[in-house]
């Protein structure tokens, strides 16, 4: 059995410590989060983990005002897709930025958010 380069568990354990990890295809260089069994670009199974800086810019965002049961007490809150400097994107909760300052292209920086022992991807001011 091949050793997993990174699992969901290890990604979020690293993220909790403030370290964001991506996976790079050892064959074609494709960057992904999370890894796939086969590289979607070249079909190889040769992933290597790479540290990411956590810096990025907002690709799109929304402010959630009607939440699912588990997040009901948190509204309103902002969620964004952030394109990281390395070219791969992540979805995360946006914190410590006024809603009216949010715009596509705004620079932000990764930070872990921990709630009920669960680590969630967050982004704050760059």
């Amino acid at each position, binding site marked *: 059995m091949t050793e997993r380069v990174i699992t969901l568990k290890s990604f979020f354990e690293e993220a909790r410590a403030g370290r964001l990890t991506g996976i790079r295809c050892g064959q074609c260089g494709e960057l992904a989060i999370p890894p796939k069994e086969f590289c979607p670009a070249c079909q190889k199974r040769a992933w290597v983990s790479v540290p990411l800086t956590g810096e990025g810019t907002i690709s799109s965002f929304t402010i*959630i005002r009607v939440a*699912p*049961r588990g997040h009901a007490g948190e509204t309103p809150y902002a969620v964004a897709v952030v394109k990281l400097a390395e070219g791969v*994107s992540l*979805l995360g*909760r946006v914190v410590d930025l006024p809603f009216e300052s949010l715009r*596509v292209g705004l620079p932000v920086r990764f930070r872990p958010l921990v709630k009920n022992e669960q680590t969630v991807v967050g982004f704050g001011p760059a």
Partner: protein
Amino acid sequence: MRRVAVIGVGLTRFGKHDRTSAELFAEAAGEAIVDAEIAPSSIRALYYGNVTGGEGERQLHTGPLAATLLGLADIPTTRFETACATSHAAFRHAVMEVSAGISDVVLVGGAERVLHIPTDHATEYFAYCSDASWEQPVGLTFPGVFALIARAHMEKHGTTEEQMAHVAVKNHRHGVHNPKAQFRKEITLETVLKSAYVADPLKLFDCCPFTDGAAAVVLVSEEVARKHRRPVWVLGSAAASDTMFMHEKRDLARVTATERAARDAYRQAGKGPEDVNVVELHDCFTIAEIVATEGLGFFEPGTGGIAAEKGWTSLGGKIPVNPSGGLKSKGHPIGATGAAQICEIVTQLRGEAGPRQVDGARIGLTHTLGGNTATVLVSLFGRD
């Protein structure tokens, strides 16, 4: 492969019901079987769609339950789940069973019941259709998914909240003429624009409602269809998928699965968007209709908002979209929606849609989108 036709359609009233989803399906299927003028005993299989039965009704194994309540307990049945595209996925597989010569008569449809549970519970169950590791913990909702798409479309193409509002106004105007619709009431642009934000830039009136309801269609082989007075032919039925992760979408202003499913369905049918006279598409949110009209090839990328504003998608417009009122006005019982869209197109192609009839419609298209745009189905229909 054999040609396949729809010869019977049925649906319940959409809205709040005090019956279980399986009971609702039995009513819709009963109507479809009567409409088809076939003996129930001629049905060889049930392809059934239901999404939240486990969470909302503590009911799984819903296929045999639905068949049992129909009085057809001994036919093979399977429950499908592809989020909001559920019963359209069931339909595509049923088409393959009839087309392959395995069965001559097959029943397809779906049902959903959610209005008996609190809204935040229903919102949570629907969010299970997005990813449990990357999206649910962040608190992304379905309005949130389409808000991300709307923001990207506005940024890239200059689409406005007012253009999105035109979609809601138009679909409510259509829905007034649909006796099965949940909301049979016209609304104004101002109503939409002044409604509260649910997930900016989407407001309450940009969103379809939670709905209870069921829909069913009877599918038959050409040999059986020829004995029937008004078959509607399945010209093509295609599915496409895309990454489950919003952060991996190549372009948030597009739904590429729609583009790929449409390409395959048009190819199967030997038709193109210019041949289509009437469309039922997945307007779970107003922006979804705008993006779908582009992805299906009716308008150039980025111009769907303009088309909505100009009235090109209204009854009487260039390409009438959602004459039934769409998910917005007719309602969206997620397990039933794909089949309900097919019911409307069949009714339109038979010329039986009354005041919402698209005059002379010969080719119709249905488009159903699942969840976070990771599943899309497109089917094309025609009459003799």
